[in-house]
């Protein structure tokens, strides 16, 4: 079968650029079966269908979870190494969301929720990133989902700096979403996550947020804010916003 005639194939270099990863990463992913390349006519060169890359890059939650749990590499175009890169990409998302029918007014609250969660990661880990600096920020406006994650200190360690008595992730996340307190006190006050909770409660926006083994699930029409203890301990924070 002549694949070139059926569909234009991307070279490994083009695929690397598309996903924002190195050639070596693509070779490793091919060998491990994570993202299998096409070998044309039994040759040794690797090729990729654009559609396959699109599908591969669409599992945002999987990439974010694997990254914060095991530092597994993900497509680099989801990585915002600095706050200014995050702000630029958030603005780009905002412009696309404004054009989406039904979101002409709601867009600003979705951007507010994503912006607060992302900015919190930068504000609380400035100069303290344990290893990889920056955050994962991916979105799919067709599926109406946004995923954010960081490999930072997490809510408990951050809040312990001002509330040393906090003993577990669940109580720390509860404080973060309900009280006016900041890990950077006394100079700064935290109010962002409180407003995130209020906005998600009132609007057709769902939120899954986890830090350590604490989980917040606010979904459906009758949303109640509750922090529960989950099965896994995650590094830093992970959030999934659906709308």
């Amino acid at each position: 079968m002549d694949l070139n005639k059926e569909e234009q194939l991307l070279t490994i270099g083009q695929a690397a650029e598309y996903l924002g990863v190195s050639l070596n990463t693509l070779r490793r992913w091919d060998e491990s079966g994570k993202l299998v390349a096409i070998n044309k006519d039994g040759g040794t060169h690797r090729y990729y269908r654009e559609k396959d890359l699109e599908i591969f890059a669409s599992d945002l939650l999987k990439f974010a979870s694997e990254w914060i749990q095991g530092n597994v590499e993900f497509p680099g175009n989801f990585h915002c190494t600095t706050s200014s890169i995050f702000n630029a990409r958030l603005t780009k998302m905002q412009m696309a969301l404004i054009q989406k029918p039904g979101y002409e007014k709601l867009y600003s609250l979705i951007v507010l929720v994503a912006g607060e969660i992302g900015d919190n990661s930068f504000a609380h880990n400035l100069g303290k990133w344990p290893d990889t600096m920056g955050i994962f920020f991916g979105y799919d406006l067709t599926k109406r989902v946004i995923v954010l994650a960081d490999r930072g200190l997490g809510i408990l360690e951050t809040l312990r700096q001002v509330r040393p008595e906090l003993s577990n992730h669940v109580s720390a996340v509860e404080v973060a979403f309900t009280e006016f307190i900041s890990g950077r006190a006394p100079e700064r006050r935290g109010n962002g996550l409180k407003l995130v909770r209020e906005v998600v409660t009132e609007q057709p926006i769902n939120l899954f947020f986890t830090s350590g083994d604490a989980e917040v699930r606010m979904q459906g029409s009758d949303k109640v804010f509750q922090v529960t203890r989950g099965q896994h301990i995650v590094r830093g924070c992970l959030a999934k916003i659906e709308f």
Partner: protein
Amino acid sequence: MKLQLEKFGKTLISRELGGEAFKALQSTLRKLSSSDELEIDFSGVLTLSPSWADEFLSPLLNQLGDRLVLLPSDNLSIHATLRILKEVNKHPFKIKS
């Protein structure tokens, strides 16, 4: 004196940049006489977050008190942010009707 907030950007999210905006405004505020009001015009702003606003509007409220006047806006993020800041500051903003 009227201040077009969009001169600081249309997407006002980052706490750090809110602080920078407040510092940058100080030279303009020197031109404000002690009886003048500072009117904040939100038109053109697409998203305002509580973190940005807490670094900008909260200290401005401390500095100017009732001389800080906010012009009305129908943007949902501005409404939500002003609501939480009122709770944080325990002082409502003066909004021009």
